């Protein structure tokens, strides 16, 4: 759980503050989300990369492989069967990495509270950003990405500083 922090500190700890700042700037403009579609917010998430919202303006480039990506994205509901694989994908990703949860289902099971198959992401891995909504509008997901970017830029640790972006 704390691996993320260790690596960040380990590599950049002894460097001067300016260098550290420079690398954080680089990371903040290059958040590549991994392509793991877990649920039904995915059409809205795809609209985000279309011309109207165009997240690539901020350097967010959706990538195919977990090995090169930085942000683990949970798009909508996460079933138990998917969570086993999602943990594996999370382990495959290189440090430093962040977790971004989109939608009410992944945050709190949303409109399916009595479902026997869904789980909440926060029970399984540290989450850096939640966006509520069912599905959240692209503006909200966009805003969440910008908030995550600020977090990366200022090196906010995930423990004790969870942020919830409220929409609608």
């Amino acid at each position, binding site marked *: 759980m704390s691996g993320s922090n260790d*690596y960040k500190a380990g*590599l*950049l700890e002894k460097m001067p503050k300016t260098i550290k700042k*420079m*690398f954080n*700037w*680089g*990371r*903040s*403009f*290059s958040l590549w989300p991994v392509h793991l579609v877990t649920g039904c917010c995915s059409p809205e998430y795809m609209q985000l990369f*279309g*011309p109207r919202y*165009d997240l*690539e*303006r*901020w*350097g967010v480039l959706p990538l*195919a*492989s977990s*090995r*090169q990506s*930085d942000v683990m994205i949970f798009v909508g509901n996460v079933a138990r069967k998917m969570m086993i694989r999602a943990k594996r994908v999370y382990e*495959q990703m*290189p*440090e*430093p990495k962040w977790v971004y949860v989109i939608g009410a289902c992944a945050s709190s099971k949303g409109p399916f509270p009595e479902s026997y198959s869904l789980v909440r992401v926060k029970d399984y891995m540290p989450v850096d950003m939640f966006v509520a909504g069912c599905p959240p509008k692209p503006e909200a997901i966009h805003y969440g990405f910008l908030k995550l970017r600020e977090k990366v830029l200022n090196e906010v640790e995930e423990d004790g500083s969870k942020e919830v972006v409220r929409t609608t």
Partner: protein
Amino acid sequence: MIDWLIEFIRVNLDPLFKIIIFPGITFIMLFTIFAVWYQRKFLARLMLRMGPVHAGRVMGWLQLIADSLKLLTKEIIFPAYSYKKLFLLSAITLPVIPAAAIALIPFAPGYAIFNVKGYTGLLFLGIMSLYPIFIVLMGWASNNKFTLIGAFRTIYLDVAGEIPIFLSVLGVFIWAGTYDLQDIVAMQSSMWFVIPQFLGFIVFFISYFAMIEKAPMDIPEAETELVFGYRTEYTGALFLDTMLGDYINILAWSLMMVTLYFGGYNGPAIFPDPLLNGAFWILFKLIILLAITFTVIISYARLRIDQAIRLGWYYLIPLALLNLIITVIIKYVVLGG
């Protein structure tokens, strides 16, 4: 002042300047970064989008710097049961090969890193034919099914693309009567070879996409089938390294095309210095060529591997041979040598 500086550099630091600044490491790195940014912006415009905007405030010109900084500080993962030494070494060697080939390209009269006369054209082809071997090694060393299939596909595609491209280059050699790239460029000061060698150019241009492994022939890294092809398992700095190799490969083949068919550094004199003038024109042509390449990339679906091989063997090789025959007839029979 500038003239004096250039003169000073040319006299005192010539070999060092060539290797380190232009057209050596710095130029290659900067141009690669530019090419990726250019591709992202250009493709984004074709998709009605903006592409990178905010990094660096003006047109996202620092986007690739940000990506590189991030990738440099990412963790490097060696997959389980991979052949670690080969995994590392093949990736590190990959960009060196096309970069070494660029050393043979003349950027001004008598100005290339490896400034020799003779069989430079053949040497270029020889060096570039090493490139797929390292891709195969990368794919094999990763111990992943996707990378392995990507590596096999590279071999297939190489067979389909390398033979026609070499045959089409042979046409230029015959037409020019020399293997020397500097001579070939010098001969094009009056007429670009794309006009007498048009058939050969068509073959070269189609095989070019097989050699740079971009759509419609991005078969080895077919994203929808093989994730990232042979580079699926590479992380962080090593991934950056493989991408660098990819784009230097594009740079090398594009430079070769400009050199063989579009008159290399030749162009109207707008700068007094021949080096500046040559560099300007070669870069100008390169940027136009890349724009055409990116437009082709976005306009076609990916071919299947058997379709690509059929294209290579049924259409491109006979065309290239036909081009050779026509070239020989025109040069030695019609024009009488």
